[in-house]
Every structure is written in structure tokens, then in C-alpha cells.
């Protein structure tokens, strides 16, 4: 019956019940300020945190996401994107927000009014609540003891679909209903590969707790779960595709495909209620990227394992816990986490503006006949792999000596695989980066030629005149 955060209904179950030193940000903060920490101040602080930091973060994510999407779209379509309001158009989203706020709140006369009004909240609230479980840093999680973390986020996000379906249904508009039905089919089918790819990663990691997952990957690039074994690497891509589909991102944006269904499930929405759907989409992009980062890409850890190392060192300082050092480490972790999420979100946008949209039957074919068998094979493979080639529990430096002979002997296969996969992954990333840079360079060259065309250089010597006797010769 223990809980400290009734607002979010988060349970508490202590994951590590040993004598290891533990640094809890909240009591430390209370201590610094000089406030007594009891249940009521605790709850009050939670409310304050949610009301200020989380709402701010979610709104900022959505605003920056919308701005970024338009900039990326502009870049890909050889135009500027928003560039009038604020520096490089950064305030465009705020201007749009003000416009949406001042618009009339319309509801169709034939709509089911209470459900029509309720639907945007049902779509937005789950995405917002899911933020509470994200591990931004070693101690920067709202509820670090959430034992079923990954699964819990999935569960919360599954409520969002109901909002979308209700929006389509309550609008009483055929385009909206088509959009809602597509959303229902798409979500119900893509949830399975999504869940199975997550299970594949969890199988390799051995925990569902998002903070524990972060600590597991603290030993540098090769300890990231995506490089644990080849099957998890495959699951990484399956997860990415399935997360695009479950978040209604192009090329899977059939529930709102503008060229077919006007605007799909939110055709009838205007003003603030429309913006809730918009916010839900961009916050949802962040959430699925954050799960991917936490589960596959090392969470808050940098590729060299520095954050994990310093976190361990500051926590186990013989002179006592180095609180300021830990806070610096946490802030660095938050920066790394956000950077990784931004990269994944950029890839999502890139895909949206470069791929055409498939038909709904093709979408379902891709799920049921391609992704679903693939993810089943990956899960089975990962299970067999874990059985045959066990790794070492824990993290290099913290729990064992990575270069010791005994380590090599016990976990030879696992270490070699991780190393090879990590090298392959780095090479792949490097190849993509080089490719992108080259594309930028060539794009810049093309743009330069277009904006500043070189004068057409006329040939200096006149074209050779045909020989005088040509015609006669032909004749």
C-alpha cells in the first residue's frame, strides 16, 4: 500500500533492496531547501513537478517538433519552411498556437457531443502520462521504482487509440469514421510486432524497469542492448517500423491521410481540440523514440560509458556521496538522452517526407505477413541465443573487469558478438552520417547553381561550318 505519487497512480516496488548507496534526488533537494519531507510535501512536490516541468516539457517537445517537422519538410522539398516569426521561424508554433486558441470551438450538429468533446483529452492525456515513466537520467526519472516500466508505457499508450477512434466515431462524418477504422485496424495489428520486438530486447536485458535498463547499458557502446545479439539488432528495426505505424506517422498515416480522407479522424475538429490531437502526435513521436532509446540505444549513456563510470564513482565516493557531481552527471545524461531522441525523431520526419503512402491492405500485409513472422523469429532466436551464449550480468568496470582473463573465458562468445555488432553498428551510423553530409553538400552545390547561375559561356569559336560541298555530296 505504499505510494508517494498518487496523482500518477504509480506503484512503488523497490527494485534494489541491498545496502548499496542510493542517491535520491528528491530528498536531497528537500534537504538543500530546508523543507521537511513528509507525505504531504512529497505529494505537493509531485503536483508542482507535473504542473510545471512536465507540462512545460511536453508542450515544448510538441512545439519544437512541429517547427522541426516543417523545417525538415522545407529542406527536403527545397524550400525554406517557417522563417518569419522569431529567429529561423522558431516562434511560428507559438503563433499558430495563439491562432488555434482564439478559433471558435465548433462541433457538428449531428455529432455525439459529449464523446466529441471527450475524445481529444483521451488522445492527449495518455501521451502526457507516459512522460512520467521516462528515464531522462540515472536519477532523473519521475518514478524510478516502476517495476514494469516499458510495459506500463505501452499500456498507457494503448488508451490513446480509444481517443482517436472516438473522435472519428463521434464526429458522425464518413471521412472521420474511415480514419478511425483504419486507426483501429492498424493499431491492433501493429501492436503485436511492437510488443514482440520490445520483448526481444527485454529478453536480452532481463528487466522491464526503465531505470535499471539504463544502468545495464552504462558500460559503453558494446553494452547497449541493440548490440547484445543479432536478433535484438533486428528487433530494433522492427520496433522502429512498428512504432511509426502505431504512432500514425507517414508512411503509415492512413488514419489521417489528407489526400484521401480530408483530415481523417480529426476532420471535424477545430481550434484547441484540434491542437490536442496535434500535441498528442508530436509528444507520441517523442515517447516512442524515448522508449527506443531507453530500451535499445543505451538510454542516457554516452557511447564511451563516461556517464555510467562517473555516476558510479560519485555514488561510491569514499568521502560520501558526491551530490553535485551526481547532479552534473544527471544533467549530462538528460542531454544525451534528448540528443538521441532528437536523432530518432529526425529520422521519423525524414521518412515521412520521402516515402509515399501505401494502401491500407498493403499496410496490413506488411504487418501480418512480414513484420509479425519476422518478430516471432527474432524472439525465438534471441531466446536461443541467450540460452547458448550467456553474457555476463552487470556492467564493465562496475561489476566486473572487462579486460580480465576470467571475464574473457566466461563470456567469450557474448563479448565477441557485442564487439562485432557494435563495430558494425558504428560503421553503419558513420556511413549514414557521411551519406547525409554528402547529400547536404551536393544539395548546397545545386542550390548555389540555381540561385546564382553562371553566365552561359558561349563557345569562343564559331561552330564549324558544314563543308561547302555537303549538300551536293548528299544529293
Amino acid at each position, binding site marked *: 500500500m505504499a505510494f508517494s505519487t498518487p496523482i500518477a497512480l504509480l506503484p512503488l516496488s523497490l527494485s534494489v*533492496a541491498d545496502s548499496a548507496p542510493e542517491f535520491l534526488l528528491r530528498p536531497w533537494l528537500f534537504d538543500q531547501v530546508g523543507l521537511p519531507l513528509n507525505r504531504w510535501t512529497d505529494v505537493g512536490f509531485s503536483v508542482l513537478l507535473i504542473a510545471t516541468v512536465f507540462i512545460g516539457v511536453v508542450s515544448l517537445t510538441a512545439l519544437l517538433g512541429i517547427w522541426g517537422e516543417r523545417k525538415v519538410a522545407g529542406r527536403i522539398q527545397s524550400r525554406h519552411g517557417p522563417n518569419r516569426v522569431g529567429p529561423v521561424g522558431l516562434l511560428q508554433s507559438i503563433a499558430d498556437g495563439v491562432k488555434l486558441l482564439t478559433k471558435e470551438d465548433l462541433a457538428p450538429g449531428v455529432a455525439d457531443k459529449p464523446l466529441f468533446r471527450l475524445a481529444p483529452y483521451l488522445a492527449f492525456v495518455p501521451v502526457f502520462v507516459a512522460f512520467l515513466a521516462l528515464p531522462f537520467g540515472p536519477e532523473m526519472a519521475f518514478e524510478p521504482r516502476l517495476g514494469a516500466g516499458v510495459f506500463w508505457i505501452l499500456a498507457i499508450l494503448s488508451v490513446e487509440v480509444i481517443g482517436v477512434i472516438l473522435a472519428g466515431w463521434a464526429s458522425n462524418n464518413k471521412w472521420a469514421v474511415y480514419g478511425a477504422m483504419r486507426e483501429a485496424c492498424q493499431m491492433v495489428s501493429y501492436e503485436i510486432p511492437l510488443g514482440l520486438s520490445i520483448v526481444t530486447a527485454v529478453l536480452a536485458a532481463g528487466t522491464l524497469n526503465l531505470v535499471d535498463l539504463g544502468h545495464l547499458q552504462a558500460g559503453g557502446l558494446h553494452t547497449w542492448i541493440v548490440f547484445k545479439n543479432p536478433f535484438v539488432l533486428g528487433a530494433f528495426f522492427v520496433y522502429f517500423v512498428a512504432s511509426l505505424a502505431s504512432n500514425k506517422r507517414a508512411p503509415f498515416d492512413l488514419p489521417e491521410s489528407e489526400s484521401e480522407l480530408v483530415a481523417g479522424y480529426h476532420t471535424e475538429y477545430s481550434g484547441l481540440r484540434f491542437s490536442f490531437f496535434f500535441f498528442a502526435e508530436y509528444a507520441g513521436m517523442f515517447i516512442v523514440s524515448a522508449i527506443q532509446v531507453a530500451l535499445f540505444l543505451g538510454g542516457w549513456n554516452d557511447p564511451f560509458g563516461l556517464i555510467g563510470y562517473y555516476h558510479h564513482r560519485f555514488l561510491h565516493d569514499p568521502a560520501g556521496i558526491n551530490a553535485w557531481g551526481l547532479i552534473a552527471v544527471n544533467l549530462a545524461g538528460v542531454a544525451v538522452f534528448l540528443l538521441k531522441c532528437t536523432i530518432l525523431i529526425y529520422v521519423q520526419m525524414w521518412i515521412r517526407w520521402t516515402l509515399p503512402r501505401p494502401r491500407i491492405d498493403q499496410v496490413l500485409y506488411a504487418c501480418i505477413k512480414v513484420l509479425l513472422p519476422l518478430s516471432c523469429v527474432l524472439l525465438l532466436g534471441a531466446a536461443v541465443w541467450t540460452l547458448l551464449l550467456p553474457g555476463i550480468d552487470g556492467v564493465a568496470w562496475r561489476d566486473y573487469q572487462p579486460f580480465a582473463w576470467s571475464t574473457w573465458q566466461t563470456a567469450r562468445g557474448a563479448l565477441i558478438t557485442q564487439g562485432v555488432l557494435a563495430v558494425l553498428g558504428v560503421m553503419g551510423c558513420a556511413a549514414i552520417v557521411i551519406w547525409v553530409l554528402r547529400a547536404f553538400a551536393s544539395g548546397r552545390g545545386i542550390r548555389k547553381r540555381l540561385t546564382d547561375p553562371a553566365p552561359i559561356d558561349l563557345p569562343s569559336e564559331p561552330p564549324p561550318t558544314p563543308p561547302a560541298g555537303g549538300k551536293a555530296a548528299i544529293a
Partner: protein
Amino acid sequence: MTMPGLAYLPATLAASPLSEVLLFYLLAILTGGSAIGIVVSRNIVRMAVALLFTLIGVAGLFFLLNAEFLAAVQLVVYVGGTLILIIFGVMLTSNSPFARQPASRGEVVLAVALAVVLLATVILAIPYSPRPVHATGEAASLPSPNATSRLGVALLGEYLLPFELVSVLLLAVMIGAAYLARARR
């Protein structure tokens, strides 16, 4: 016994049940109220929405009991699966946009009888259930720290046979559904 999650709170406050009770009643009102909504409503989609809040309320009660995995399962299975399928089925099958489902007299009688029997069973079972008792000051039987992993071990260890039987049942249901839905030649 200390409260695991509240290790950093003073013991007296951590044991205070007041906010728990408040939260329990909040969730109970949500669950019960929306359950009444399901029964009272005549519009099938509104019933589904009321069912959504009932399910969320039950998930909240599971959270309150520290059974977070069960709560997540509740949301995934019932909200993410069953409820969506219900709404989907309504969309595909109903003739009018907002279908109404008036209950006949016989259905009402049957439903009331069933509800009375169920309620009586629950009320009679309460004194015999090994429930956590607050009045004695004893802490409720909290799940151990790694409740989720223990659940997994139990499902694939001690209760392997029932688990597998249920899986086979689900497989049979799936094959049956595919058989019924197959294209007729």
C-alpha cells in the same frame, strides 16, 4: 516492516493510510460510477466509453495494491485489445450512426438475478478471504520487490501446465475464428 517505496519518508507518515483511503474511494467512485453508466446508457459507444473508465479504475486499484504489472496487463488487454475490438465491431455492424440497444424485460430480469447472485457470492466470500487488515496496524501483504519477475517465474514454473493449457485454448479460438472468417469457396 517498512514501506519499500517510501524508504525516504518518516515511518509514521509512510504508514499513514489516509491518502490511501482517499485514493481508494476516488478510484472506487470512478469504477463504480462508470459501471453504473454502462448499465444506464442506451448508446452502445457511450457504454464502451463508460467501460473504458471502469477498466481504468480497476487498473488504478491494482496500482494501489502495488500490482503494477497486473494493472498494465489490464490496460493492454482490455483497453488496447477488447475495448477497441468492441468499438470496431459496433462501427462495422450498426445500421444507424448512434445505435441504441434497448433491453427487453426478460433481459433485465436475468441481469438483475445474475447481479444479485454475484453480489451475494462476493459478500459471503469476504469474511473468508485472507485480506490485508488495516485495523490491526499490520501492513498489507505487499508484493516483493521484483513482483514482475516473480510472476514470470511462477507462470513458467509452478503454474506451467495451466499456463500452457490457456495458450492452447487461445490457439484453438484463433484457429476457429480464422475458420469462420475464411473466404467461402
